[in-house]
């Protein structure tokens, strides 16, 4: 296959994809970087001027920034904890013989296909609404005072909504990993006298390690950019109680029209995401050689 002719053809075939992605990455990112050093407000066009590191200084020292970082970490960490632990348990359960396994599987993965705006709105209005939500009815049924979830526990509520969307993803991937586990290994362990718990911890969990890492890293990439769920439920509030980094940058740029500060925030977000990306890429890269 490896002839001179085919190599030249290959290069031509790859180039459109490469050029497009290169443009997509370099041009806007370059502009963001450039804007981040400008005083630039969309409401005052024509007054752009170079300000050096001012935008970064302003963005990083804004109390909203530190709270956004904390919120982002809670959001990502909370969802990850729920989905990976829940996902392992669910996958383990779904891997057992049962009646109607196919349908159970379909039911469990369904939330992943619900568009973020639908799930956020439905949870907000039909479940978490303190008057007419289903949870309020449930609370009243047990004689408790209904809770105004999104005002009192905004971040927790968003974690619940997002976790509901991502639990199926984790379950599905971990289930796939479970199914690739060699049954002989489990039987060998059983012959060696390993009980159910030690089989889980010594055989299954190590086998899942790789899939769990993939789940954590990929979810992190997506969870760092959670946006729609916040926009339609709390708008980042009350105050900045549920503003994450993505939402903060959006608010700076398109709500307060402060492009300079927003761009500085965008660059900060890119740097943070890259730290995660490096680990993910190593994982996937290793797999390429295998």
């Amino acid at each position, binding site marked *: 296959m490896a002839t001179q002719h085919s190599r030249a053809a290959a290069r031509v*075939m790859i180039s459109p994809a490469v050029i497009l992605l290169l443009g997509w990455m370099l041009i806007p990112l370059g502009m963001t970087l450039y804007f981040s050093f400008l005083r630039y407000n969309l409401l005052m066009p024509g007054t752009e001027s170079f300000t050096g590191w001012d935008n970064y200084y302003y963005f990083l020292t804004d109390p909203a920034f530190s709270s956004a970082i904390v919120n982002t970490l809670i959001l990502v960490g909370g969802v990850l904890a729920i989905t990976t632990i829940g996902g392992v348990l669910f996958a383990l359960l779904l891997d057992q013989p049962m009646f109607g396994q196919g349908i159970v599987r379909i039911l469990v993965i369904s939330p992943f296909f619900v568009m973020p705006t639908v799930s956020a709105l439905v949870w907000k209005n039909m479940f978490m609404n303190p008057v007419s939500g289903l949870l309020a009815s449930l609370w009243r049924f047990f004689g408790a005072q209904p809770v105004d979830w999104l005002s009192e526990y905004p971040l927790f509520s968003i974690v619940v909504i997002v976790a509901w969307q991502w639990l199926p993803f984790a379950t599905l991937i971990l289930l796939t990993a479970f199914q690739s586990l060699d049954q002989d290994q489990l039987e060998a362990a059983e012959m060696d006298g390993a009980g159910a718990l030690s089989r889980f911890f010594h055989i299954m969990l190590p086998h899942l390690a790789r899939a769990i890492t993939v789940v954590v890293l*990929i979810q992190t990439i997506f969870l760092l950019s959670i946006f729609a769920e916040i926009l339609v439920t709390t708008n980042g509030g009350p105050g900045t109680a549920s503003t994450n980094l993505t939402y903060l940058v959006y608010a700076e*740029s398109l709500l307060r029209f402060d492009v300079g500060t927003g761009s500085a925030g965008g660059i900060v977000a890119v740097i943070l995401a890259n730290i995660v990306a490096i680990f993910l890429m190593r994982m996937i890269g290793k797999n390429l050689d295998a």
Partner: protein
Amino acid sequence: MARAVSTRRKWITTVVAWALALLIFFPILWIILTSFKTEAEAISTPPSFLFFDWTTENYGTVQERSNYFRHFWNSVVISIGSTVIGLIIAIPAAWAMAFVPGKQTKNVLMWMLSTKMLPPVGVLVPIYLIFRDVGLLDSRLGLIIVLTLINLPIIVWMLYTYFREIPVDILEAARMDGAALRNEILYILTPMAVPGIASTLLLNVILAWNEAFWTLNLTAANSAPLTAFIASYSSPEGLFYAKLSAASTMAIAPILILGWFSQKQLVRGLTFGAVK
């Protein structure tokens, strides 16, 4: 599992699994049920589960009031359009990388992946400004362009993992059998690659259909797909639960069904082949 399991244990597993699965699925079920209620019943306390006057009037109202099908059509055009363009760009690239791998192939693939890791918010402002200046804001074309680009790495990767599973031997056999490159692609490669291409298409339509960062930020009334249209219910209009539910049911139903069909490919696509 070829292991013998007692029937009793199987029944216990079944009951527990079904209970948990229904709990997870319940919000979706609730949306569907509510869409068939009247507004009064939708907010009644205690809520009624099955014993209410079933009505389909909400579906009609949603269309009348807000021209629902225009947004539905926007979603169709944008998700399918971006996927097809993505495939046209990605198929040659993935083919070349799978069958004529060079020293740089791995690096190119990893680099493509890295563009997917770029948080969208990092490039939101320039894209917004560029689109504003060239008149692509609130246009379907603009969204098709953006969604093609953000999903291109996934398309290339998925196709690459599928193509790589086609044995090189078979292509060489075709060459030995006297097939020129054109015939090799037409008679051998394409039929063998179609299942992989179809799965890639399916997954990507799902991802594009549900994309909710760019669709919310780059559209207004005109080209808004369903994600953005539904978001407009976050205004006080959202208190019309039955209509919200009807709109939501129609928005998620097609993709839910597609998703059920593609669950296996989903794993591969979303983990870039790291888990199969």
